[in-house]
Structures are given as structure tokens and as C-alpha cells.
């Protein structure tokens, strides 16, 4: 390579393409770099290509085109069992005919480690996931959460450089899932191992990851930190997929440096020009519900509009209100339950406002449905 690379990425997908049938691409021109010790999540709806990427990295699928590098070495022609990559599967894939101890010892035995070392490492792995004393049980005798921990311990016991997790928490109930999210996160911090995590649950992705790659239609839509993704979505898909989002359809009236004004039905909105086109181009405005202020002080926001309250849902810490505003009947505003607000009533007209920076003017891809 001629370009001076200051530091070679630990995992690198270089222009990877994957097709299962020779007609459609499941993964299109993927370029992705993952640093050593990073917790990277591949997030996306089902069929977006994220699991395929993971399987290519694990070696269970071969890339149709392109190279995958691990630690500077192309692994395209390396068999899965020689890649030294730990993997946690969706349904754990614990071997039912082996005890927990035998499951954990399996990767060590196939590596022909000495008996004493196997024992020691298995004990350490059990300790790590707080399952000491469960070694003689069979997977079927464990609860879902315990099985999950065994699966994690098994993927880590042989000290792989890289651990892949394919929706590992999908089978758990909500409470256990949240607990396991923290446990996995802590194990990652403690061991410093590189983790590539696949999920379709955005909450899980935001909680756990250093960086998130949002997949859709075989393409990474945006790759950023959780905060970056939520605060600064770069296209409509990301804005829509991560968190809740109000959408206003409009046309760019004027661009003014970073800002622009957009004509929407019934008004002119000041917005941050992120990826919208020039004057006259269609755009979609994206606005987070919690960034909208009800009854703003005069002059505090450039965007102030009248809205009719359609529906109110009391949620304890905040009131979720659905408003009719600028031709949109599904405009959601989260009003914090801080006592500073006068209670709203269904049918009344209120003023709402927001800053230009919180309203992001994004491109309007033709494939994206105009409304749903």
C-alpha cells in the first residue's frame, strides 16, 4: 500500500460484495474498519446484510468479491476453525450432549492444551460469568440467562482476538436482556477483546457499543458513536431507524451556509442543511420529539408554529402528545413532567417551537416512502 497508514485497522472489510444467487447483492461494496479493542455493533433491520457480514467474518460465508483482513492478514482463504474468532450464536448453540464444563473445555481440548491448563481456564471462565459450581450441569438444566453466560464464556475461554455475537440476547426477556447487556459490556471492558455485535434492537446497540454501523439494503448508512447517530443522523433512514423522529416533507427554498429555509405545507421552516440538495430540491426535515418546546418564549426559537393537540398519553416522566402541525397529523412532542408546563387539553391550539440546529434537512431518496 502506498498511502501511509498510521495504524492498520484490526478488522478491515475492503470493498466486500456478497451475493447468494448471482443476481442480487446482499452486501454492496462494504468498506469497514474496526479497531483493536473496539465494541462495534452492526445494526439494521432483517435482511439488511449485517448477519451476512458477520458470517463472512466468521468464515461460514465466503465473500463474492473483495477482501477481509484480520490483523493485517487476508482471511478469505482461512478455514473458520483456523481464524481464532470466538462466536456467540443467536440460540447459543451450546452442545446439549456435553455438560457446561465439557462445553467450555471443548475449544481448549481441540487446541490440545494440557489437562491442568484446561481445568484452570474453564474454572476462570466460569468464575467470570459467575457460574462457578454449574460445571456439571447440562445446558438444558440452565435458565436462558445462564445458558447465555455459558455461551459467552465459551466464546472467550480460548482467548480469541475477536469475538462475534449474533443477536445473542434475542431469546431473553426484557429485564434479563438489559442485565446481560451490562454484563457483556463489562466483560468487554475487563478483557479488552474486540467485539463485533449484530442486533436489530437499537436500544441494545446504543447501550453497548463504542461505534454503531447502521445497515440497510446491504449498505452501511452511517457509522458513528451512539451519540453521533442519535444526535446527528446523516440520512432519513438513520434518523427514522434510531430513536423516535418527526418527519416533515418540504422543498428547499434557500440555502444559507450551514442553514437553509424549507417550504413545507403551511409555513417556512429554518433548518440545518445536512444532506439536502440545492434550491428547489425535495427534502425531509427530521426533528426529535424531545427537542420541541411547547409555548416557547417569544424570540427564543426561529421556528414557532401553531399546533392542534390531537392526543395525549400520560407516561409518568413525560407526556407524549400527538399534534397536528404543518400538515402533519403525527407530529409527536414529548413534554417533560417538570411542573413548568401548563397542562394541555385535547383539541386546544398551542404554540410549539424549535431551533434551526435541531431540525435537520436530509436528502429525500426516491426509494424512501414519502409517508407511512
Amino acid at each position, binding site marked *: 500500500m502506498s498511502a501511509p497508514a498510521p495504524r492498520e485497522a484490526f478488522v478491515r472489510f475492503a470493498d466486500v460484495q456478497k451475493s447468494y444467487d448471482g443476481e442480487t447483492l446482499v452486501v454492496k461494496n462494504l468498506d469497514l474498519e474496526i479497531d483493536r479493542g473496539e465494541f462495534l455493533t452492526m445494526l439494521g433491520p432483517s435482511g439488511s446484510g449485517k448477519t451476512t457480514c458477520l458470517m463472512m467474518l466468521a468464515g461460514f460465508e465466503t465473500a463474492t468479491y473483495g477482501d477481509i483482513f484480520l490483523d493485517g492478514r487476508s482471511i478469505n482463504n482461512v478455514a*473458520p*476453525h483456523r481464524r481464532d474468532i470466538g*462466536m456467540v450464536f443467536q440460540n447459543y448453540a451450546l452442545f446439549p450432549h456435553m455438560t457446561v464444563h465439557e462445553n467450555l473445555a471443548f*475449544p481448549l481440548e*481441540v487446541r490440545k492444551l494440557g489437562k491442568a491448563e484446561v481445568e484452570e481456564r474453564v474454572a476462570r471462565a466460569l468464575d467470570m460469568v459467575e457460574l462457578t459450581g454449574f460445571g456439571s450441569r447440562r445446558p438444558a438444566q440452565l435458565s436462558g440467562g445462564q445458558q447465555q453466560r455459558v455461551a459467552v464464556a465459551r*466464546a472467550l475461554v480460548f482467548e480469541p482476538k475477536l469475538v*462475534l455475537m449474533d443477536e445473542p440476547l434475542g431469546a431473553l426477556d426484557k429485564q434479563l436482556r438489559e442485565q446481560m447487556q451490562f454484563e457483556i459490556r463489562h466483560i468487554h471492558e475487563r478483557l479488552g477483546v474486540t467485539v463485533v455485535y449484530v442486533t436489530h434492537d437499537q436500544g441494545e446497540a446504543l447501550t453497548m457499543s463504542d461505534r454503531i454501523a447502521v445497515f440497510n439494503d446491504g449498505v452501511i448508512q452511517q457509522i458513528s458513536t451512539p451519540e453521533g447517530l442519535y444526535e446527528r443522523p446523516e440520512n432519513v433512514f438513520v434518523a427514522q431507524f434510531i430513536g423516535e423522529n418527526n418527519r416533515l416533507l418540504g422543498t428547499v427554498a434557500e440555502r444559507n451556509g450551514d442553514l437553509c429555509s424549507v417550504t413545507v405545507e403551511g409555513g417556512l421552516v429554518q433548518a440545518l442543511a445536512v444532506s439536502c440538495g440545492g434550491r428547489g430540491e425535495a427534502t425531509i426535515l427530521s426533528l426529535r420529539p424531545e427537542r420541541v418546546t411547547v409555548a416557547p418564549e417569544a424570540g427564543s426559537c426561529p421556528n414557532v408554529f401553531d399546533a392542534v393537540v390531537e392526543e395525549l398519553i400520560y407516561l409518568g416522566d413525560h407526556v407524549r402528545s400527538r399534534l397536528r402541525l404543518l400538515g402533519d397529523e403525527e407530529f409527536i412532542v414529548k413534554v417533560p413532567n417538570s411542573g413548568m408546563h401548563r397542562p394541555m387539553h385535547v383539541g386546544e391550539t398551542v404554540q410549539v417551537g424549535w431551533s434551526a440546529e435541531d431540525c435537520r434537512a436530509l436528502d429525500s431518496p426516491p426509494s424512501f416512502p414519502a409517508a407511512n
Partner: protein
Amino acid sequence: MAAIAPGQLTTADGTPLKVSFARALRRSRLKALGLVLPLFAFLLITFLVPIGDMLFRSVENQLVGRVLHRTVAALADWDPASGELPGEPVFEALVADFVEGRENRTTGRVGVRLNYELGGMSSLFRKTGRRAKRIREAPYRAAMIAIDERWGNLDVWRLVKRESDAYTASYYLAAVDLRFTAEGSIARQEEERQIYLRLFGRTLWLSLIITTLCLLLGYPISYLMATLPVRTSNLLMIMVLLPFWTSLLVRTTCWIALLQQQGVINDLLVWTGLIGEDNRLSMIHNRTGTIIAMTHILLPFMVLPLYSVMKTIPPSYMRAARSLGANPFTAFVRVYMPNTAAGVGAGSILVFIIAIGYYITPALVGGTSGTLISNFIAHHMQVSLNWGLAAALGALLLAAVLALYVLYDKLVGIDNMRLG
């Protein structure tokens, strides 16, 4: 109402909970019983009763005692070990029995029965039956010995006394190549008459070979069917099942056409020059024919349980094993194969049990070296009419199957068996 013990749970009206619970269950139990009753009755009449009858026949021996009832009664005080012939009253009773038996035509059957134990008894009884009515007065003993000197033979009398009991072990002894000696002790059958143990051995050995072949042939195809995409695996499944839907006789006859000396395979081998015209292989009407045809016929019984078990093994097991560092072979042997144990066990025991009782195919293609115990049972049922021996052989076969079943339960656990 029964007195309610303190601490006992009761329903709102004071009935003990157990009573109330039993009452609630009774209705659904009756319903369940009603649903299984027709099948149970069917099995009882067509399965359990015949098996019971077979077991009874294998020891039943009332014929001698019934037809020669006077003789048997008179023989009660006679000591077979005394070395002397029975006295005059016994012979008098014997003549009376023969006269009566001649009218009922029953003495001939006794002769046939005793002939199983000692050669010549049938002819002795026929001969005596014709002439006994001429004896009208004493001395009976001399007269009988005059009809046939075998009546003066101690062995004949020992046999009659021994077989006068209502139950006998002689069928079972015969079924395992043993016999009673004239003195009443148990000895090996003569060399040239020892056939059943060898036949049992051959039946078990051939069944084992057939089971092994079915497993070796069935395992890969089941694996393929379980791992290929549904469309392809369905096609394979049809190919496995197609022979299953064809008549057994048609399939067996096809094997005859294929394997006989002037058959397709031999012709092909001769034509390609692999074997000479004079060295045509004999692959049918012998052991080879039985093995080939039965393996073919029993293969689906191996494939179906294997497939149904393999279908439930998620592909992620193998992937997990690979990702943990096992090469494909190790992953297969240490992770995949142990998980198919239930299918291997179920398929093997099914094929083995069907094989050891198989009749029609060995009868058609077995010749002499490929016939199994079931063919001899049929022979005794239909040709020699020695139903007692047929029943004893059948009971031993049944015992072997049950023993296998118990062994399987001990080794694998019957709960783990999955047939489909």
C-alpha cells in the same frame, strides 16, 4: 363424607380437595379411555391373545394324558428307573385306551406327537391302533409285545410316562438343540439334528450385518437430506420412500431379476469383461441375496428416524464447533454424531427387530444358506405341523427382541428414541 383431617385442603363446600380433584379428572379419563378402547380391543384380539396362545402352545402337552388316560393313571406307581417293564394292569389299560382311541382316531395323533421325541413312535402307534382291538383277554403284556416288540422296550415306556404331564419343556429343548435322553436327563441333540441354534445364530448375525449396512448407507443420505435445501431434500426423500411404496414382492422379484446368474448384473459384468462367462457370480438364493434384498427393503426404516433426528440438530452446532477451533472432522465426530445417537439407536433397533423376524424375502431369495429362523417357524406351522416347536421358536424370538429392547433402554434410554 369422610372426616376431614386437620390441615387437609378442602374446596369451598368442605369436600376434601383430593376427592374433588379426582371427580373432576374422572370425566376426562373416561373420555380418554373411550378413545383408546377400540384400538385396545383390536390389539387384544389380534395381538395379545395370539401371543398368549403361542406361549401356551409352546409348553402345552395334554394330548398324551388325555388320549391314554387309563394308561397314564396306571403308570402312576411305575418307577421308570426300576429297569422293569410296567405290570399287567398298565398293558390292560393301554389296550383299552387303544380301542377307544381307534374309534376317536386320536391314537395316531399321539403317535405323531411322540414321534417328535423318538423316531418310529408314529408307526408303532398306527400299527398297534390297527391290531389292539383283537386283544380280548389277558395276558395283555405278552399280546402287545407280540404286536410290536417295541412295547417291550423300556425307553418307549419312559417316554410315555414323561410326556404324560400336561406341560412339557421338550419343545423348548428341541428349539435350542437339546433333548431328553431315554433316562430323562437333558443332553445335546445329535450332531446332524442340531439346526436351530445355528439358525438363531445366523439370524442374529445376518440381522446385525443388515443393520450395519443400513446404518452405513442410511447415515450419509439422511445427513444430506437434513442439510440440503428443502426442495432438494424433498426430492431425495421421495427417492428414499418410493421403494417403500412399492409392493414387497415386486421389489424382491426385481432383485431376483437383477442378481440371478443369468441376470442383469451378471450379464453386465460378463459383457464388460470383468468376470468370465464361466465365473458368473451367484448373488441370489444364498446369504448374499438375503443381505442385499433385505438391506434394500429395510433402509427406509433406518433413514426415517435418522432424518427426523438430524432435522432437529441446528446447523449452528457445527458452526459453533468450527468457530471454537474444531476441524470439520472433529466437529462432526464430537458434536454432530453424539446428537444423532437417538436416531441411530432408534433406526438400528427398528431394523434389527424387523430383520430377525423377517420371512418373505429370505423365503424368496434366501436359498438354503440365507434362510432365517422365521422360515423354519413357517415350515413347522405349515409343513411339519409341529406347532409346539414353532411356538417355542417364536417365543424364543420374542424373548430375544424383548431382551434387545431392555438392553437398548439400559444403554440409550427408550425415552430418547425418536421414530419420526
